[in-house]
């Protein structure tokens, strides 16, 4: 059944009550994305304080989730909490069979209709408002409509029982971030801390950066965060206008006198843990930890707008830097070591110059956290870093791995710790930079080779060899999605006269002998129905496929069946 946000603390109390006089009665299943990790962090902090014993189990995909659920033999176990997973799979059998109640916090919509009807499955939904009985029934009927097209599966007596349901033809879309919901829970109980707030901001930024919510929704949600930032932080703004100017003058005098003094040497504002608001933060990727030149060069937005992979594009980038009045040498060193006089004027100048080069959309409201006395990370830095750690093709830490799953689990925990740990974050940022370079290079190769083909209502490209070292990044779903988005955006800028279309990208994985395929829609707010299209195409040609990703826009097809699958897909029957 659906639970409105106003009943969150009742849910939490229920979980807490169940754990009384029992041992470990709660299992938390976490999917591998930044938002879920952030939510997990908030939830475990609260449970720890309440001495509710729990266990946290990372799950990578639906197959794994199913195995885990089947393997629960623990007699004490009563509650399951799903973070960013579970909404679209069959959880109804867990209730009657094992006496387990499932609480599902999943930002992916729509939920599976059977789950909504079951009393054992509690789905937390931000759009749902509890109203009188008859209204509620109507609601569930509306939810049922798309379900009618599906075969009713998941019943014990039917032979075709499957755990993961068929995809919804209307496509998937995303609700409020899971970390946001859990933060709201903490807020309702007056237990929100700055750490938890930061997790919410990170979860929200993750949704925005991975194209799960669009710009206007992000702005709206971040404003909710900002009121909390103002409430919980003593110094929500790094510098106020007049103060800043005074300090700037001071610092100029100091440098004239030959004494080097940091510009804002104000210890109070650098209190570790402090979050401050940046109303106009540059939307350049990781620029705090990169050089300005690289950051401009590799940021999706700038790279696409300028067409950076061609000579004219590079020339235009150099022109921009010349107009900013920053020497190339300064520009190529780490941003944090750039002279303060250049940093100070950077935003204003970029805004002026941006208009002439058609890159106006360079600013975003975001928050920045002082991790320790030395290091600051913006929410987007954290998201890039944590995602890169999660999908890192190499093993992190000091453990020895035996297979892919072990590696994934190990990286999962590194990423989990990285949310609040500077050393891991920096490690992640290095990987994220390499990954972004790989995205731009690989994207460029595909566009220059004219490998992007048109189909009925989308475009597609195939990476049919993974001999290049950088291709290994794209065997992971989120990185593949980023690359697909990059190609789509770049293509749109390149051919401004043509209609924007969704983009499908297929990449070969030789070690698994499969193709991983994903599709992104041309506008973020559009529902993504590629999960359904892929499924139908694969079914039609009877291909061997795996479609157990939590975000339902991926499919993995066996190499031998790929050609037929692609033909079916591009034939445009759907």
């Amino acid at each position, binding site marked *: 059944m659906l639970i409105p946000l106003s009943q969150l603390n009742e849910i939490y109390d229920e979980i807490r009550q169940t754990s009384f006089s029992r*041992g*470990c009665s709660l299992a938390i299943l976490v999917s591998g994305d930044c938002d879920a990790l952030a939510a997990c962090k908030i939830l*475990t902090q609260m449970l*720890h304080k309440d*001495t509710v014993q729990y*266990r*946290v*189990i*990372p799950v990578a995909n639906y197959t794994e989730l199913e195995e885990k659920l089947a393997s629960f033999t623990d007699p004490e176990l009563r509650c399951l909490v799903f973070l960013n997973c579970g909404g679209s799979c069959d959880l109804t059998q867990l209730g009657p069979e094992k006496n387990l109640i499932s609480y599902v916090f999943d930002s992916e919509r729509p939920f599976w209709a059977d789950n909504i009807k079951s009393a054992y499955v509690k789905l937390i939904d931000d759009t749902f408002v509890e109203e009188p009985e008859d209204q509620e029934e109507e609601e569930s009927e509306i939810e049922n409509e798309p379900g009618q097209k599906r075969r009713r599966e998941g019943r014990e007596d039917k032979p075709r029982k499957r755990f993961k349901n068929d995809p919804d033809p209307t496509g998937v879309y995303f609700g409020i971030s899971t970390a946001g919901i859990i933060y709201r829970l903490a807020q309702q109980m007056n237990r929100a801390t700055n750490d938890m707030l930061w997790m919410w901001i990170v979860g929200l930024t993750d949704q925005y950066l991975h194209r799960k919510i669009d710009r206007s929704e992000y702005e709206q949600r971040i404003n909710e965060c900002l009121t909390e930032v103002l409430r919980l932080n003593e110094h929500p703004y790094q510098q106020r206008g007049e103060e800043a100017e005074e300090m700037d003058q001071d610092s100029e005098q100091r440098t004239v006198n030959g004494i080097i003094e940091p510009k804002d040497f104000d210890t109070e504002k650098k209190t570790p843990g402090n979050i401050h608001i940046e109303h106009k933060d540059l939307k350049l990727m990781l620029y705090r930890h990169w050089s300005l030149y690289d950051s401009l060069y590799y940021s999706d937005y700038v790279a696409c707008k300028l067409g950076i992979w061609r000579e004219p594009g590079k020339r235009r980038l150099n022109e921009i830097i010349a107009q900013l009045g920053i020497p190339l040498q300064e520009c190529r060193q780490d941003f944090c070591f750039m002279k303060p006089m250049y940093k100070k004027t950077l935003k204003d100048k970029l805004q002026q110059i941006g208009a002439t080069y058609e890159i106006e959309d360079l600013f975003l409201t975001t928050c920045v956290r002082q991790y320790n006395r030395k290091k600051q990370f913006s929410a987007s830095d954290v998201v890039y870093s944590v995602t890169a750690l999660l999908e890192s093709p190499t093993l992190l830490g000091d453990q020895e791995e035996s297979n892919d799953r072990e590696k994934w689990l190990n990286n999962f925990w590194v990423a989990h*710790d990285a949310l609040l740990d500077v050393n891991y974050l920096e490690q992640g940022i290095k990987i994220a930079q390499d990954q972004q370079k790989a995205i731009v290079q690989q994207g460029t190769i595909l566009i220059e080779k004219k490998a992007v083909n048109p189909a009925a209502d989308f475009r597609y490209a195939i990476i049919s060899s993974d001999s290049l070292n950088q291709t290994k990044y794209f065997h992971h779903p989120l990185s593949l999605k980023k690359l697909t988005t990059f190609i789509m955006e770049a293509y749109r800028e390149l051919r401004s006269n043509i209609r924007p279309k969704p983009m499908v990208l297929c990449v070969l994985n030789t070690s698994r002998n499969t193709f991983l395929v994903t599709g992104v829609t041309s506008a973020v707010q559009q529902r993504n129905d590629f999960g359904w299209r892929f499924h139908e195409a694969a079914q039609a040609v009877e291909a061997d496929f795996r479609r157990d990703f939590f975000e339902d826009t991926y499919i993995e097809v066996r190499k031998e069946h790929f050609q037929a699958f692609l033909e079916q897909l591009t034939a445009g029957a759907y």
Partner: protein
Amino acid sequence: MHAEKSKKLVRELKTSKWLPPYNVALISEISQDMASLYEKAVSDLEDRNTDSALIKSSLVNRNKRCVLAYLNYRLTKLECLRLETGPNIPPHFSNQLNKDEMDYFKQYSALLQDYSRKVSKSLDLTGDLQPPKDVFVEVRATEDVGDIVLPETGQVSLEKNTVHLLRRSEAAGLIRQGVLQHIN
């Protein structure tokens, strides 16, 4: 000849992670050296060569101090081990000890138990000196252990790479064994 060997003996303590294996050979060599040095010192004295005798006697003292320091260090470590891990010596540690040290460990253990009984019946002297901040600790399993039953929590399935919130008292032993890793 001079204090080289004793220096080597003491160095061994520093290079090993916990304790080096008990070096019988080196200790007996040192004691032979000391005996011969002593004899020479005595004969020097008879020859009225006091300077030489003085040097030799301080060499003997030096060696003695080194060997005693070696033994003392080992005994202190043993006592710490008793307080940390309880009355049984973990198997990978017992190779490093000689028979006398084992006896010492057992007797020390018995003494400690007697004393502990005398002080109070319910008090565990080997527990943490600092009071714990929290009843529960967050731990991550580093190996597949499978289902285990803990006295208060009940059944817990410790699979590799899952995180659990367990009682400090229950987790402490498993953390020492290296099955669980404490995270905060």
